[in-house]
């Protein structure tokens, strides 16, 4: 964008405008130029309004109550929580410690066991690499699953390069691990078993209580020690050096406290929306498959595959619904998701998956609209598809020998 602007202004040869444009662009929140009151035009697509948002596993909107708790720390209370010599530091430190207690309360831990990090990727890097590096003399083996988030898989790969052994446990077709199989893989020198509680793509909930967690929870008794991945001023008990960003941490604390209060209410509501979405789609079209276990599933997620339609065309046709085909981390490629492949989903079905993410602010009307638009698009694509016509005529398309080009 900036380079395009630069190019335009340069070709007009008005050096004075360059300076002015750049100086104002950075300082003032000007409305983006792709919006005008009649609609939004972006990437060649024109939409009359902002799409309804169902991509809650990519990110979710900040709750106004959370933002309300954060704003003071962006305005007057801007102290560095590690400053020891003045009020600004002390009040920020208090806010950070309150947040730590709020996070700990949510997960039933002690505040001393909470380490603030930049997010899940960093937490997982510290856990996986930090634990194994610290115990490298005795423990040489790690177990994880094939459907883990990339940050765990890549940390494991990194360990492999350093000579550690890694077992990537396969999952069943419902996305869950086989506990007996896990038991068999554990060896005396296994230092870590890393299994995610809720999968970011298919939302299946692994049986965590039966095996052995933006903030990192680190148990103190028996004590787990890690080698720091960030070195510096020794903040966060030396495990994660770097200044703790007070507003963000305060927001996280407020979000955790809110989650504790609202969890039951939200879960009941989101479950009913999940049912409404699935039933709504299934009532109108056939050939819809839920990816991953339906019984052990996080209620805010529904990952569906639509037979006989092409995934990209489906997503392209759903411009008024913000959804994705899988994780945002890997959406740049057209390859079907490695998570779905680990479940043994057929290539063609893996290509047509859509991940619907429902959240606290999703409405029934949005779910109904999403059902209506999805059904409309699937029917449209199937009407154009010769494959679907053949299936309706009773031809088993899996048996067709396609000519080689």
């Amino acid at each position, binding site marked *: 964008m900036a380079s395009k602007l630069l190019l335009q202004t340069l070709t007009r040869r008005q050096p004075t405008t360059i300076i002015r444009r750049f100086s104002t662009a950075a300082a003032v929140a000007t409305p983006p130029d792709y919006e005008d009151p009649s609609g939004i035009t972006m990437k060649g697509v024109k939409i009359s309004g902002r799409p309804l948002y169902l991509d809650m596993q990519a990110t979710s909107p900040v709750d106004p109550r959370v933002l309300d708790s954060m704003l003071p720390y962006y305005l007057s209370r801007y102290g560095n929580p590690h400053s020891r010599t003045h009020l600004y530091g002390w009040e920020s430190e208090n806010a950070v410690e309150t947040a730590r207690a709020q996070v700990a309360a949510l997960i039933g831990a002690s505040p001393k066991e909470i380490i603030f990090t930049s997010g899940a990727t960093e937490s997982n890097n510290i856990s996986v690499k930090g634990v194994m590096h610290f115990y490298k003399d005795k423990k040489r083996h790690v177990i994880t699953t094939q459907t883990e988030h990339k940050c765990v898989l890549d940390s494991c790969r990194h360990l492999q390069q350093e000579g550690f052994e890694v077992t990537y446990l396969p999952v069943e077709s419902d996305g869950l691990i086989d506990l007996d199989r896990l038991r068999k893989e554990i060896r005396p020198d296994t230092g870590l078993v890393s299994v995610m509680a809720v999968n970011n793509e298919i939302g299946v909930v692994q049986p965590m209580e039966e095996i052995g967690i933006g903030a990192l929870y680190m148990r103190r008794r028996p004590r787990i020690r890690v080698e720091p991945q960030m070195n510096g001023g020794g903040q966060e008990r030396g495990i994660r050096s770097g200044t703790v960003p007070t507003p963000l941490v305060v927001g996280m604390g407020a979000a955790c406290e809110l989650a504790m209060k609202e969890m039951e209410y939200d879960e009941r509501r989101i479950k009913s929306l999940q049912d409404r979405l699935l039933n709504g789609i299934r009532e109108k079209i056939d050939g819809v498959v839920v990816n991953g276990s339906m019984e052990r599933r996080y209620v805010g997620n529904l990952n569906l595959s639509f037979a006989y339609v092409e995934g990209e065309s489906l997503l392209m046709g759903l411009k*008024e619904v913000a959804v994705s085909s899988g994780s945002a981390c890997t959406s740049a490629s057209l390859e079907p998701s490695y998570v779905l492949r680990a479940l043994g989903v057929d290539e063609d079905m893996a290509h047509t998956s859509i991940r619907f993410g429902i959240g606290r602010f999703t409405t029934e009307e949005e779910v109904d609209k999403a059902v209506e638009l999805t059904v409309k698009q699937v029917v449209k694509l199937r009407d154009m598809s010769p494959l679907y016509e053949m299936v309706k005529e009773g031809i088993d398309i899996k048996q067709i020998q396609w000519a080689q080009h």
Partner: protein
Amino acid sequence: MAASGLAAPTRTEVLQLYRSLLRVARQFCDYNIREYTKRRTIDAFRDNKNLTDPSQLSAAFSDGKAQLEVAKRQAVVYSLYAPKVKSIMDIKPS
């Protein structure tokens, strides 16, 4: 807890708080936040309909008042950064 010592709110005060929350909900320009504030207010008052214990009543009342203050501030913040284009859910088919 914090409510000890506070007198239980009168019926008029409760109704007033309920109406104020619904009024501030309508002021949110964001579709999802507006609908949520409305829904959460209605559901919370319904859940607490049968409260009779004065201390519980005043605790719920003061919690509601605190929520009203947050909602009032946030409705202003949201209005300051409202996108020009509305949610498709707010656009009535013509």
